[in-house]
């Protein structure tokens, strides 16, 4: 405070000076950024090797298997893209809630709820076409948005932090899925973890050539990226949401309706997550499974953090993480390792980015203090 209130003139002068100085020592900011990113990736690689050592497997062979499993053929690439779609939808949705400084950990449950609503909407139809598919997607969006709204209401009116409400609701959504699969929606004959009765082929999303990903799903994910980008950066709604996130108290003074806007952010993110759930049902699994979300919600949170909550890097990180997730399916088959290694690598990567950020901050403060 004291520093901020010191003489405006000397501050302004000093600011211009420091700007000149900054330009002098980092002529190529992009190169510096790339260097730090490289450092983070190296750190991640080192840590990955370190933690995989106890398992006894060769780390580099393992990584090769992972990448081959996600990129090795057109079919595998298709699977990776099929994972990219829900991951991107969730991550892009999370940017909205992150903008409002909300920790929407409930995104996982919102994916599940989207899948449940989507399946529910399809139950009356044995066969169908485009209208039924659109209806099912809309139902999925509604399901996710409502589940997010619940977390939002608990946060805004009940003052329960969204980390707890979201997490609790994730488990509840999983419980509802299990109950439906083993109860009212169980397959004729015997109920099992393999899920409900598959939906008819006429209700499947159309595939992109030989790949298991649907062009419709890809188009929706791309549209979500562009749409959220425009919404957050170009619209006055986005500016208001940023303001609410930046300082809720000031947002009240500016009469920006912070409560309503937080709820809107929750619902928008939940809607996108619900759409991801619907696509998992319509385009990937064609039924409701206990693991319908494939933990994409949690992974999307990691993506958002790794991207420092900026839109630009999100699609690329999502793709890489999707490749890892799909590739890890090969691990138990080829190397006798647990498939959770993909999660380990993803976690380590994000952690490394945070460590490198922290080190930069630390170095900068040391330099300023000196």
């Amino acid at each position: 405070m004291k520093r901020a209130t010191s003489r405006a003139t000397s501050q302004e002068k000093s600011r211009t000076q420091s700007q000149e100085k900054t330009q002098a020592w980092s002529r190529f900011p992009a190169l510096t950024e790339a260097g730090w990113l490289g450092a983070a990736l190296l750190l991640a690689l080192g840590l990955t090797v370190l933690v995989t050592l106890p398992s006894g497997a060769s780390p580099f062979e393992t990584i090769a298997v992972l990448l081959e499993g996600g990129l090795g053929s057109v079919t595998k690439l298709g699977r990776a893209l099929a994972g990219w779609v829900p991951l991107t939808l969730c991550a892009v949705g999370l940017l909205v809630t992150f903008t409002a400084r909300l920790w929407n950990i409930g995104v996982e449950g919102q994916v599940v709820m989207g899948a449940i609503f989507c399946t529910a909407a399809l139950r009356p139809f044995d066969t169908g076409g485009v209208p039924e598919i659109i209806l099912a997607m809309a139902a999925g969006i509604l399901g996710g948005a409502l589940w997010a709204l619940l977390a939002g209401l608990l946060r805004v009116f009940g003052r329960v932090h969204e980390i707890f409400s979201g997490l609790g609701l994730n488990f509840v959504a999983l419980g509802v899925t299990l109950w439906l699969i083993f109860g009212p929606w169980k397959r004729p004959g015997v109920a099992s973890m393999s899920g409900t009765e598959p939906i008819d082929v006429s209700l499947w999303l159309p595939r992109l050539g030989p790949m298991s990903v649907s062009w419709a799903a890809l188009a929706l994910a791309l549209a979500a990226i562009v749409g959220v980008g425009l919404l957050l950066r170009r619209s006055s709604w986005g500016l208001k949401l940023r303001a609410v996130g930046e300082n809720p108290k000031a947002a009240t003074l500016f009469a920006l309706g912070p409560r309503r806007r937080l709820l809107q952010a929750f619902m928008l993110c939940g809607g996108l997550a619900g759409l991801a759930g619907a696509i998992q049902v319509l385009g990937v699994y064609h039924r409701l499974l206990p693991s319908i979300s494939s933990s994409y919600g949690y992974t999307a949170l990691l993506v958002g953090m790794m991207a420092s909550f900026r839109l630009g890097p999100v699609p690329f990180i999502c793709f890489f993480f999707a490749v890892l997730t799909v590739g890890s399916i090969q691990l138990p088959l080829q190397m006798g390792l647990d498939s959770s290694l993909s999660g380990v690598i993803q976690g380590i990567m994000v952690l490394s980015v945070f460590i490198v950020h922290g080190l930069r901050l630390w170095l900068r403060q040391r330099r300023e203090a000196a």
Partner: protein
Amino acid sequence: MIVLQDIHKHYGRVRANDGVSLTLEPGRIYALVGENGAGKSTLMRVLAGHTRPTSGTIDLGGRTVAFLTPTLAREHGVGMLYQDPLDFPAMPIWENFQLGAPKRTKGQVFDVIGELSYRLDACFLPDEAVSSLTVGERQLLELLRLLDLGATTLILDEPTTGITPEQKRELFDLLMKLAREENHTIVLVTHKLSEALEMADAILVMRQGAIVATLTPPYDEGELVLRMFGDAAESEGADAPGPATPRPAALDAPPRLRLDNVVMAGPKYSMGPMRFSARPGECIGLAGLDGSGQELFLRGLCGLDRMPGGTLTLDGRAYTTNDFPVLRRAGVHFVPADRLEMALFPALTLREHIALAFPGRSDELDAFYQSQCVERFNLRAHPQTRASELSGGNQQRLLLSLIPDHAALLLMEHPTRGLDAGSARQVWSHLHDRCRAGATLIFFSPDLDEVLAHSHRVAVFYDRAMAAVVDRARATTEVVGALMAGKDPDQVLGGGQ
């Protein structure tokens, strides 16, 4: 004896201290004066070991060091008292007292507190939480603690803000006693010249990070002002203009604001029922110690805290609930003291603030910025500057420029907090202009002189209630101070009110 040699303290490019040398002798009272941002507090933090100087040496009784830590400073008997006491409100008094002291049992701590309280004429219940004390009592507790630790050099940073005149009297007597009878060194950091003139054996004047003069009695007030403010003092005059008296027409105009049996409720306490009214063009100052109810009064008036009972009438329209957006549309605007924390968006630019405050003008933002902020409010900053990079004065200019001209009721918490004298004058002249144009201003300041200088009427709060409303003619430091300390209004005002 303490000698500071050529102390520099730089924050990035800002030079808070720029080569300060200073000698402090025992048994003397020093006043360190200067404008906000002159570097007084930084210098004292260096001495208390709370911040490390960029360069320079500190000589304490023969030992020379490059910097002090809080522990080292304590060992050499240096203790600092902050304006906002550095204590732990949620914890009991005895734990606050014990923390940082050599190991003792709880019983011993109780004894020491009792003994010191007796010596200094204070009264503390060691098991009570510190949050139950007033700012003045918290300061006294800190003072007790520092003395218990063996402090012989006491630094007091703006100690008279937020305490009653009576408490100030007692504090000054105590400091005088400590210096004269116990040979302590006292450094009084203040921006109030009267306090310096009253107390000090020597006045050290700081300006732009350096000590520009050391004055000894007899003091020449004109010279002191000149040293503090430089040439600016001559051209502008040190005193801000007083408020304009309300125009005659306004006196019999319908009241701008009327409260009937209004109850206000905040997160910690509720207050009321209250009756109150204000005319257009009136400046009403609120006086009271921290937590006496004035904060809740302002927040309740604008709808940030709830109004569970009563009627609020604004320009003839009656409201039984105080919904913030509704009142805001009716022209009630609130400016909190903590500007960056409460009222601005630190990472957003000035342009974006304008866009948020005036949604209808999104097409001509830059022109509007130029005319509103730069020309009318003298806000000299690029529209793409972030709010967090603004100085305190510019933050306040920005906030004032965001309030539309038709605002009927302005509610301000400490309008000049953290501002230098020039900015403070500018803010007040703007506020008086608004009042002359018919707006009603209700403001609070912990600085009683500021309240008295700018109000037509002063509303005094005590113990979470509005104790009395005093007219300008009768609002003297003594009267308002007595009311703030809880004296019976009938006695103080002679039963007239």
